Every structure is written in structure tokens, then in C-alpha cells.
């Protein structure tokens, strides 16, 4: 009886302990950090936010002029791939990039296990579990990237003006949807430059310079014409078409600083 009780006490204590993570004193694996810097471009021009309704900065291949007032998107579930095919999945991996806020354009990954990484992938948007489990914190705190009337995150938001858009010339692309049949979650795996590896060490913090080309929202598998394409504000077929467009080539790694 006594022994049983002691075991029970120890077991309960162990339970308490195991709920605290990473408190073991075992040899700490070496870690380093890595960053991804987003450079926003529109075709061959740099992205410049402009709220003019009369002067337009960019032109699509379909010859429609437009400008951009807002460009925001979630990057989540970043994974780094090793040559042997194994992966490091960053825990709690959520970033909200906002073209209007320079600090958000640098995605810092801390405590990455040291290693040679040969590839990376990420989701544009927010995975289904975080869309369905209630109140979230940090960059996932509900705000203007969350639909309140139909719970779910807006994965990517591009707003601006175009004389080609019907009515008030307003462009409002709000892309989201985490459930079939309107699942707009896309995994992006941009290739590293040939022969380049990401060497993460305690004293090496590689910096990936990624170009995100906003024009790719409108070209790719679907050619978007502002005058005729029903601009999506909710999950659906057209949101998935835009997602397919940006998955097909919006993000490209331009170069890597080995540091």
C-alpha cells in the first residue's frame, strides 16, 4: 500500500513536470538562426503603396493599369529540408507580412537546429487548426485579416484601384478558405539558387532574400482581367484561382547571404 502511494505521488509529480517543456538538462543541441527577407515587387518595379485613384503605377500583361494601397499576407508553417529528406518544422510558425510595415518583411527564425538545409517550404495563409480553435494570439489575433461573419483568416489581401475595375474602380482581393471544397491553402517551395545550402550554425545565420512579385496574383494558370473577373472576398472558386496563381510563382529566392 505504502509503496503504491509513493509511486502514485511520483507519477503525479512526473505528470506535472512533463507538461513543462524543454526543462531537461540534457546536452543542448546546437542551434542558430535564419531570416527570410521579403522584397515586394510588381513585375520589374519595386512595390510602392499609393492611394491615388487617378494615377496608376503598374500595368498587367492584359494592359490594365492599377495601383496598390494594401498588400498583406500570412506566411506560416515554415519547414527547412535537409539533403537526406528530413525536415525541421518551425514550431508556432506564423508571420503576418505587411508591405506598409518594414519590420514585418523580415521573418526571423530563432533556435533552428544547426545543420545544412537544402530547401524550404511554407504555407501562404493559416492552417485549418488555427482557423477552428477559437481565440488566437500574436499575429493571429483577429483583426482585419479575419472574417468574423464566417470564421476564418484572410490569407492574403491586396487592395488598390484600377480604372478597369467595374464601378468605383476599387480592387479588393481577399483570399482565404481552409476547408474543402474551397481550400485556398497553398504550400510554396521556392528553389534555392543552384548549389546553395543554408548552413545554420551557432555562428552562422543565413539570410534568404526572397522576391514576392504581386503581379503574379493576376497571371499564371488564370489570367485576371479586372473588368470581368469576379474579385473574391470570401472562400470560393475565384479565391482558389488567385491562390493557384500565387502558388505558381509569386515567391522566388533571389539570393542567400551565407553570413
Amino acid at each position, binding site marked *: *500500500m*505504502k509503496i503504491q*502511494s*509513493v509511486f*502514485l*505521488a511520483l507519477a*503525479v*509529480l512526473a*505528470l*506535472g*513536470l512533463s*507538461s*513543462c517543456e524543454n526543462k531537461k538538462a540534457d546536452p543542448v543541441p546546437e542551434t542558430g538562426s535564419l531570416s527570410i527577407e521579403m522584397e515586394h515587387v510588381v513585375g520589374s518595379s519595386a512595390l510602392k503603396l499609393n492611394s491615388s485613384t487617378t494615377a496608376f503605377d503598374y500595368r498587367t500583361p492584359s494592359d490594365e493599369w492599377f495601383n496598390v494601397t494594401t498588400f498583406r499576407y500570412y506566411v506560416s508553417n515554415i519547414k527547412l529540408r535537409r539533403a537526406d529528406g528530413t525536415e525541421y518544422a518551425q514550431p508556432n510558425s506564423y508571420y503576418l507580412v505587411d508591405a506598409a510595415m518594414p519590420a514585418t518583411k523580415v521573418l526571423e527564425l530563432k533556435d533552428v537546429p544547426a545543420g545544412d538545409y537544402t530547401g524550404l517550404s511554407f504555407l501562404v495563409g493559416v492552417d485549418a487548426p488555427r*482557423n*477552428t*480553435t*477559437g*481565440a*488566437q*494570439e500574436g499575429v493571429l*489575433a*483577429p*483583426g482585419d485579416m*479575419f472574417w*468574423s*461573419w*464566417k*470564421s*476564418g483568416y484572410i490569407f492574403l489581401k491586396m487592395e488598390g484601384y484600377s480604372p478597369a475595375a467595374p464601378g468605383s474602380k476599387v480592387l479588393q482581393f481577399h483570399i482565404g478558405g481552409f476547408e474543402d471544397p*474551397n481550400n485556398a491553402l497553398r504550400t510554396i517551395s521556392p528553389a534555392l539558387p543552384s548549389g546553395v545550402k543554408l548552413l545554420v550554425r551557432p555562428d552562422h545565420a543565413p539570410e534568404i532574400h526572397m522576391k514576392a512579385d504581386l503581379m503574379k496574383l493576376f497571371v499564371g494558370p488564370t489570367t485576371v482581367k479586372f473588368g470581368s473577373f469576379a474579385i473574391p472576398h*470570401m*472562400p*470560393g472558386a475565384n479565391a482558389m484561382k488567385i491562390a493557384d496563381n500565387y502558388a505558381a510563382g509569386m515567391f522566388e529566392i533571389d539570393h542567400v547571404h551565407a553570413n
Partner: protein
Amino acid sequence: MRRTLLLPLAFGLAAVWMTGCAPDADMAPEQAVPGAVLPVNFPAPVYGPEQNPPTKEAFELGRSLFYDPRLSRDGTISCGSCHQQFVAFAHAGHTVSHGIEGRLGTRNAPPLQNLRWRRGFMWDGGPNHLEVIPLAPLTNPLEMDETLDNVLRKLNADLSYQQRFQVVFSKQPIDSYQLLKALAQFMAALTSANSRYDHFVRGEAGGTLTEPELRGRAVLVQQCASCHATDLFTDESFRNNGLDRSFAADSGRAHITGLAADQGKFKVPSLRNVALTAPYMHDGRFQTLRQVLDHYDHGVVESATLDPILRQPGGRLGLPLTPQEKNDLLAFLNTLTDAAFLTDKRLAEQR
């Protein structure tokens, strides 16, 4: 002897360890927060107490927020304005409710009860979780027409709220996570499970049903319970119950899914406290329960998405009910009124 000493010691130590990792407040004694004990005659909850462990301080904070008109843009409307306790947190006498500046919505304010067991909220299931549902009325221009940022500004400027949030969350400033968690504490506490019917099914004192009520229960089990299922009296599904032939005014569930097959479908409401929650249906078109029963008996109309349960062999629509059956059903539905819930002072606005 030893054993009796060791066990509490073990749990005490464990509690110390656990709180070291989870700064959330301790579990309150169960009686301190209404609804913290789950009724034995209910199915498993969707939003179990472990997801937001009830505490007296958090519950009371949620209650203050629920009744605080500062959640609306012009400070005139609180959640409690359209969700009144004496009618099971529905809106008495309102076909549709008025938001700020008298703006009228398009749907009847549903009662708020047993929300721990809900899978999708509102008539169309748009909000998918108890913690995020306040965002919808808060930001809807026809309801509170406010932004989360503004609400947080107002709360953070209030010394009393600062202190009370600090007690519950040990963190400053007040953010949307804290706001939503606190509101969820109050909403989750709105448990109605002490009607005469509940006492009857649980074999408790005072649980006697009369002959007409028992007959009414039998009719319900036979005719209604495929949708108004379990002791929650809803299966949480979305169905077209034959109110209209077309749905231009309100497409219901299809507004959320975009599917033609969901046109005209709305959430099956619970029947708890139904005697008090008039008017009925998503647009509040029926004033009495008798009108509702008459609808099912002979008012159901044809449409492509009409629920198959409302198609009788031979092509007749609806659920045939004799006058006797209607009277018995009405008698039974009255046994679902839960006076303890409707008058629980802990759920009322504190003045």
C-alpha cells in the same frame, strides 16, 4: 494513515508544478460559476471546461463585458440588449433586433443557452467557435458597428477593467485574446438543464410529467426528434423546413458555403425554453408555438432543398399532427422552461 497523507501531498505538489507552467487561474469551486458542472443527461460538450477552465473572476469579468454597452460604437448597445435573460437570452418581442442608431438586422436574435454544445453559431453556422462569435455582432454595421481595436482602447482606458483583466490573465495590456476568453467564460456558463423535463429524465425530485405532457413527449420523439435530437433538442444540422419557395431574401447556410444545395437551410434551433423565445424561425415570422405547429402540419411549401423528412409518402408535405397531438406537444414544450436558469442572479446584469 500514511496513504491518506500522501495523496493530498502528491496532488498539492503537482498543482504547484502545473501552475508553474500554466499561468491561468486555478479552477474555482464548481458552484462558484454557473454551468461549470456538465448535466448528466447531455452529450459530450464541444467546448469542454478544460478549454477555458471556469473561474469566478473570469466568469464575472465576462459577465461585465456581456452587459457593457461600450462594446458598441456609440455606447448604446450591449450583448445583453438583444439577449435578455428572462427569455433565455433571446430578444423578447422582436422579430429582428435593432443595433446602434436603430439599424435593423435581418434575422431573429436566437436564445443563448447550452453554447458549450454548439458546433456552428448563428442561423447559418458562419462563426465556428464559441470564442470568436462575439466578433460578428461586434463588427456588424447593423449591430454594434465597432472595431476590436476601439473596444480594446476603451477597456484599456478603464482602471477597473485593467485590474480585473490583470487578475485573470496576469498580463497587460488587455488584448483581443483576453477579451474573447473572458466573454467565452460567461457564454459557456449559460447552461439550461434544470427544467421540469430535466428533473423527470434524471429521476430527480419535482420531475413529474402529466399525462398530456407525457403524450406530447411521445409525439415529439416520433415526429420531431430526428432534428430536435438529444436532450439538447437539436442535432446542430442545417435544414430547410419548408418556410419559403425561394430564398432571395436570405439564402441561409448557402451564404456561408456558397453551395446551391444549402439554399434556404438554417440551423435547427433547440427547443429548450421555447415557450419564452417567440417570435420563431430565422426571421421571426411566427408569433406563437401553435403557428409553428400549424406550419409543420399544413404550411410546408415545396423547394429544391426541402428537407426529405418533411416529404410524406404520397407527396404530402410536412408532419401531420392532429389537434390532440398539437395540444399535447404544446404541453410538453412547456416542461422545457427552466425557471432556475431564467432567474439565476449570477447570470443577470449586476447593478
